[in-house]
């Protein structure tokens, strides 16, 4: 019996080894040229040239890498709770994740948009979308903190987002799934054509504070919106969206939404929409959506429930939107740096159509339409077309641009990046990716002024590229040098979450402005203790508020007595340090949430409901000094109704027997 087992194991082993080697594609290593290592080597203590702000996909976060080294600097919590810092666990951050559905601790973050001024990166904010429970987030690039999250009403899933206009006037949010909206929402799924609608929200950005609010929402026919890009330069004032499922299928979309040879690019004249609003032609509609905002002065987030949204109906208000036929199930929809060309990538198409903004305008002026779709005019394909890139590869997805008039398109099915000239439409070069590339990123690639130099591939499959770690392998990116005529693979680097889109920005636009500390003098938290003199413990009914301070390396107070079963204890911990890179942490045994990390000058609050009588230790979790291990304290929990008085101290030694 034993021998049989052994030989089976042996056979399986041989078989799997054979499969392993036989599946290994031939020759990826040969793609590396000799000097690749020196091009990505950033010596110890030296800085990278670019920040790469990368979406985390299903981890709901963003991550920050250095380019060209591929080193990971930070996972930046956005839509998902993050026990490592207490994001979504501390009392201050919980409101950030509030929605019309209540507290939602997770989402799926796909796309990044960095703020721009006159079409160029300005290094102020990063925006990200929540694909599942529709939201948009704004991150302050001084503090690398999520400062604001805005929910989107009447949306089935926010995929076509958060793309940005030339001066950060608006970011958009187009629904991936059309759904029934308004009062009539309990309808048979089979009434898709009649009852399902799409919406595109234009979110206005305050030019000084960055604060977001929904400027207006466009009601659209029921289709799926995928991706989008704003016009720029001559096409500023327009926005372009890829649409699929113009079949309006509601089941087995894999088959039923791929019937037509062409779907649409939707061109939106948002300046026209603004004119209609100025004329009072918008309609205020009841809606329920959360608007969450972090106040840097109090270090606290608040959540406000909004009640209405301004809508425009482009089937009535003509001249706002137009459809342009596009082969086939278009995914990426990218405008080139000049703003003249719109590149649409049909996932199932064998060509890449490039549309001309000038021609689109001429076709609209001449009413050169082939008909209407759900009340919206459809421009003739040939009338809008600049030309087609012939035989580029299989499964084109996304396109980024360099500063020399070239485009770089990712091909999922054929696992490659193809470089081509935007004007001549001629294919110039192609390199393999390992494997199945999704988005790609050229530093400044979506702006009017690309920085060029590199293209980064974000791959969907890594297979044999790294040491295996069980069934789930690392996600990965690949860095290519594009400074010469030929693209050159330089580096594979692992990424966290599932990277979708990313942007890269010169470090010089962000690093010099990075916040080092929060000034303790400017801390307006209602429970701040600005110095140990203000540390105290206050009872309000069954709530016990501990105003605690942390500094290397002790907590004040560190002895607390008089807490009783049935109490809810709030530790409001103020970090008194005013030096860069000296956070303190705080955790208490049995707490049902997480630790909190408190930045210098900040106050953060951990809620703790004691569940047994005894003396419970708490301590600093972030190694802070040689005496970090001494940075601890005790909270005594007595039975409900006990007469132990509330008292607190640090450094007081009592010579008493037990009371």
């Amino acid at each position: 019996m034993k021998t049989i087992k052994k030989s089976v194991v042996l056979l399986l082993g041989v078989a799997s080894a054979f499969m392993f080697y036989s599946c290994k594609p031939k020759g990826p290593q040969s793609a590396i040229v000799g000097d690749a290592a020196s091009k990505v080597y950033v010596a110890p203590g030296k800085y990278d040239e670019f920040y790469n702000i990368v979406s985390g996909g299903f981890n709901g976060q963003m991550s920050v890498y250095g380019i060209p080294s591929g080193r990971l600097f930070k996972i930046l919590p956005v839509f998902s709770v993050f026990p490592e810092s207490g994001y979504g666990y501390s009392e201050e951050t919980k409101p950030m994740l509030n929605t019309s559905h209540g507290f939602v601790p997770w989402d799926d973050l796909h796309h990044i948009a960095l703020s721009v001024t006159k079409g160029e990166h300005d290094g102020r904010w990063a925006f990200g979308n929540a694909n599942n429970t529709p939201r948009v987030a704004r991150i302050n690039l001084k503090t690398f903190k999520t400062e604001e999250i805005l929910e989107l009403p009447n949306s089935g899933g926010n995929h076509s987002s958060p793309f940005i206009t030339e001066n950060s006037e608006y970011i958009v949010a187009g629904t991936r799934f059309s759904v029934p909206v308004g009062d009539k929402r309990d309808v048979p799924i089979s009434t898709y054509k009649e009852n399902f609608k799409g919406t595109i929200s234009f979110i206005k950005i305050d030019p000084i504070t960055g604060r977001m609010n929904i400027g207006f929402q466009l009601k659209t026919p029921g289709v799926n919106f995928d991706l989008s890009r704003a016009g720029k330069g001559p096409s500023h004032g327009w926005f372009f969206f890829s649409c699929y499922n113009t079949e309006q299928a509601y089941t087995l979309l894999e088959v039923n939404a791929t019937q037509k040879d062409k779907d649409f690019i939707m061109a939106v004249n948002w300046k026209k929409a603004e004119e209609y609003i100025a004329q009072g032609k918008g309609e205020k509609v009841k809606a329920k959506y959360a608007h969450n905002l972090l106040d840097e002065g109090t270090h606290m987030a608040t959540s406000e429930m909004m009640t209405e949204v301004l809508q425009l109906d482009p089937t009535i208000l003509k001249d706002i939107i137009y459809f342009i036929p596009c082969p086939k199930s278009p995914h990426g929809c990218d405008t080139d740096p000049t703003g003249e060309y719109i590149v649409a990538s049909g996932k199932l198409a064998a060509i890449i159509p490039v549309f001309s903004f000038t021609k689109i305008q001429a076709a609209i002026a001449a009413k050169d339409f082939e008909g209407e779709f759900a009340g919206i005019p459809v421009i003739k394909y040939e009338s809008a077309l600049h030309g087609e890139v012939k035989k580029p590869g299989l499964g084109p997805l996304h396109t980024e641009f360099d500063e020399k008039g070239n485009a770089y398109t990712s091909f999922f099915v054929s696992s490659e990046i193809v470089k081509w000239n935007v004007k001549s439409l001629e294919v110039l070069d192609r390199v393999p990716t390992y494997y199945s590339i999704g988005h790609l990123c050229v530093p400044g690639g979506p702006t009017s002024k690309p920085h060029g130099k590199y293209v980064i591939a974000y791959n969907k499959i890594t297979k044999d590229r790294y040491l295996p770690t069980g069934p789930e392998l690392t996600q990965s990116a690949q860095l290519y040098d594009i400074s010469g005529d030929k693209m050159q693979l330089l580096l594979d680097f692992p990424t966290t979450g599932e990277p979708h889109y990313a942007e890269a920005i010169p470090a010089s636009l962000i690093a010099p402005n990075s916040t080092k500390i929060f000034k303790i003098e400017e801390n307006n938290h209602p429970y701040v203790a600005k110095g140990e003199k203000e540390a105290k413990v206050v009872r309000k009914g069954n709530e016990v508020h501990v105003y605690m301070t942390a500094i290397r390396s002790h907590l004040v107070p560190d002895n607390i007595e008089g807490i009783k079963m049935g109490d809810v204890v709030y530790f409001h911990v103020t970090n008194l340090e005013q030096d860069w890179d000296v956070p303190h942490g705080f955790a208490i045994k049995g707490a049902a949430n997480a630790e909190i990390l408190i930045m210098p000058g900040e106050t953060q609050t951990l809620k703790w409901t004691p569940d047994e009588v005894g003396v419970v230790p708490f301590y600093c979790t972030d190694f802070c000094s040689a005496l970090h291990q001494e940075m601890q304290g005790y909270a005594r929990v007595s039975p409900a109704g006990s007469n132990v008085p509330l008292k607190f101290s640090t450094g007081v030694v009592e010579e008493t027997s037990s009371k």
Partner: protein
Amino acid sequence: MKPYLTGIVCLTLLASCAPDKPKNIEEFPDQSTKSAVEDVISDPTKGLGAIKTVTLKTPLELDRVSRGLAIYDMKCSACHKLTAQRVVGPGWKDITKRRQPEWVMNMITNIDMMLEKDPEAQKLLELCLMRMPNQNMSIGDARDVLEFMRQNDGEK
């Protein structure tokens, strides 16, 4: 001969391919304090830093004293007692009699260099085993704290 050549080729490649960095990044983080202080080692009792001479007035400047006390409560009291007792850092009793006013203010505003180069500051680090934190104090703040220290030492 051959290894020698390979070496040269590698070096050349390394030099030509090292990433160019924007100049302002090279200067980041800000190290502006360094250049200003190199020349002040002449009087070791005054410490190292931007503060070369401090003029003390009698009677005490009371507005400075009250500002200094507020700063003490917020940023210093966690580690320094007003008595001679050492807790995390030394007690402040008689500090203005032990130290030059310039030394005290340089210690507050230029901690990293003081701990690196000033023998007296280094002795304190050996004693306390805790680097005094940079509490982000301006020269004006440090002057206010000094005035409060004088009052704590009994000056009028």
